[in-house]
Each structure stands twice: as structure tokens, then as C-alpha cells.
């Protein structure tokens, strides 16, 4: 998904890049620059860029956020070391009741120095939900 966004961001209008077909082959040598010559004498260049941090905002939360959340959940619920906690784990599956969920959200508030309001806290069902909400609040706070 980040790739397609990068492509959309660097899409150049065909009129500006119009070249006769004979010179197209010379343009392909640069790393990462791919041009397709269609029959219509105009080509589209798709440049692939390594995905930068700003494109990740619309995707799900960063891995270290998810890991931190997993760690807090594990310590709060006192899960034995062997249990795997992933982004998709639901709190109810891990044996947490609603009181545990409130405590976990409190722990996350302290860890990330954010404030979660009541309504958002009700919607948190999985680790991924929590991580996404945290990311959103951290961004809002920094802005």
C-alpha cells in the first residue's frame, strides 16, 4: 500500500515527460526508474521510493507500539511467558474482563503519556485497536 501511495505522489503528467520513442531506452538506466512506452507516444514513469515514515500514518500502528502494548498486557494479566500476544489477540480471549481492560488502558495512558476518553476506551477489543488508538493520540498530541 505504501508503494502505490509513493507512485501516486510522484506521478508526473504525461505532457511534461513526452519524449520520442527512440530516446526512451536511454532513460531506463537509472536505479529505480521504470518507464513504460505505450503505443501512444506518451509514457508514464513510476518511480519506486523506499517507503518513508509519512506514508505509514494511514496504515496500522508501528511495530514497536504494538510490542509495547503486548508487553503491558502481558504484565497486567500476569500471563505466563509462553503465551504469544499478537496484534490480533482479543483481550477477552486472553482472559481479561472489562475491569482488566480498564486497567490495561490506564497502563497504556501512563506509558505513552496520553489521555484516552471514555468512548474510545469502550471500543478497544484487540491489541491492534489499542495500538492504533495510541498512535492516533500521540500524533494529535504532537501536532
Amino acid at each position, binding site marked *: 500500500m505504501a508503494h502505490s501511495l509513493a507512485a501516486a505522489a510522484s506521478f508526473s503528467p504525461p505532457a511534461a515527460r513526452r519524449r520520442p520513442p527512440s530516446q526512451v531506452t536511454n532513460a531506463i538506466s537509472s536505479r529505480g526508474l521504470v518507464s513504460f512506452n505505450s503505443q501512444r507516444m506518451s509514457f508514464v514513469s513510476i518511480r519506486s521510493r523506499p517507503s518513508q515514515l509519512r506514508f505509514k500514518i494511514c496504515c496500522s500502528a508501528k511495530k514497536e507500539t504494538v510490542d509495547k502494548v503486548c508487553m503491558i498486557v502481558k504484565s497486567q494479566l500476569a500471563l505466563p511467558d509462553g503465551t504469544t500476544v499478537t496484534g490480533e489477540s482479543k483481550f477477552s480471549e486472553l482472559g481479561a*474482563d*472489562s*475491569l482488566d481492560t*480498564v*486497567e490495561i*488502558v*490506564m497502563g497504556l495512558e*501512563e506509558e505513552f503519556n496520553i489521555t484516552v476518553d*471514555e468512548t474510545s*476506551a*469502550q471500543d478497544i477489543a484487540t491489541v491492534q485497536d489499542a495500538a492504533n488508538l495510541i498512535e492516533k493520540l500521540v500524533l494529535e498530541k504532537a501536532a
Partner: protein
Amino acid sequence: MAAVAPTRAEVLSLFRSLLRTARQFSDYNIREYTRRRAADAFRENRALSDAPAAAAAFVDGKKQLEVAKRQAVVYSLYAPKAKNIMEMKLQ
């Protein structure tokens, strides 16, 4: 006075308020005690099925919240300067 059992959302909201108030204490011991006591009390009363008992427990919880809020203000006037050893990171 008709005893209306508190809704789930109210109970969780009270719990959240208690935990938030606990955070305001500067003393580590009192902070931890408030958290522990709140969690224990709510967990213990989880299974209360009849409405009057649940309502009574809820009112009791609200009173304790008021106590905690007042005490947080009083304790902050006399906050210790040194950090409690439990709060220091392991070196």
C-alpha cells in the same frame, strides 16, 4: 429510596475515575494502595447480582472516590522531595 443498580458503563467509569485519582498522589505507597484497593473491591463485587447490594456498593465507591480526591489535594501540599526507592529505575 429505590435502589437502581448501576449500569456497566457507570461502574467502569467509576473505576476509571478512581484509577485516575490514584495517579495524582505523589506518594508511591498511597498511589499503589488506591489502585490495588480499587481493583480488589471492584473484582470482589463483580458477581453481585441483586440490585440493592450493587447500588449500595456503587454509592460506597463514589464516597471513596470523593475521599481519594480530597486526600490527593491534601497530600500534594506535603509532597516529599525525595523519590521513593520503588520508583527508581534499577541501576
